[in-house]
């Protein structure tokens, strides 16, 4: 049960908002960072363009689709 920092796994093409992470994070330990901003966690799938994310198991949905050339969204969590 370690801490993990990893890039979100998924296609970066300006439209994809669905990503995965390697493990199911412990509740409250997950921080998702996109373009230097910590995203707000929301309970249901975030609206498009919302600076937020939702997580279910190892599936993670971003409100903003990352653009090609941007920093790969990353996260830190404990599992």
């Amino acid at each position, binding site marked *: 049960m*370690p801490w993990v920092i990893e890039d979100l796994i998924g296609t970066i093409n300006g439209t994809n908002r669905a990503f995965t992470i390697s493990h199911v994070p412990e509740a409250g330990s997950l921080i998702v960072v996109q373009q230097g901003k910590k995203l707000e966690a929301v309970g249901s799938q975030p609206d498009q363009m919302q600076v937020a994310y939702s997580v279910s198991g190892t599936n993670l949905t971003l409100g903003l689709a990352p653009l090609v050339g941007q*920093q790969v969204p990353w996260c830190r969590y404990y599992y």
Partner: protein
Amino acid sequence: MDLQLWTISRLGRLTPALRREVTFYAPLLESLDFLGVEPVIFTRATSSVAVRRDGLDHAIAANVPRFNYAGETQLGLMMQAGESLEYSVANFLDNINTLIWFEENAPKSTPTNANPFTSSGLWGGTLSVHIKHIIKFKRILTNAEINSVQAALAEVVQVIPPPPTPPVVSPGVFVNEVPAGSGTTFTLSNNPNLNSLIVDAHGVTLKRVASAPGNMEFTAGGTGNRTLTFGMAPSGTAPTQAWYVIA
């Protein structure tokens, strides 16, 4: 006489002096096999059900004794109304010499308990109980001897221990600090768990990289209290902060 190795083995728990005094022994753990004068006769008019080691009910035919299990524990022979268990009178099970047996794992002995066998060798004792380890001696044993026999024959109840409790794991206690330093080089006051480390500077959360940090990145070099090197010097207005769990 009819002996099996495990029967001998169970008797082997007795002291040699006591073993020489045994005239009859019926373990009744999984068969009617016994040490003594034959025959043994078990009767039941109807078919029945026995619980075997697998924990499941198994149908058994008429006149077949029921040896039930509770997990790995052998409960013994279930005796109920309508069933009979008879040994040869030549075993003298009903005489005054000590008879020891178990009912539902509870040890019994004469004369403290009434002899369960009739003069014709029939089980006349308690019904609807599991009986086992019927053992007869050729004299009246002392209380100490009876106790030693009962202790030797008593079942070691198989207890499956519960799985061990997993160790309590904790993500640790977070430290929140303003790293000491200036420009692009700062130092933490503790040795951080690097995978827990979050660093905010110039209004953004920096991503840790192995080398050559860019504008939104930093490296954590050295060992112990790590040296943080930012790709861009923080502005004077945005606070620089680090959150981490101590390694």
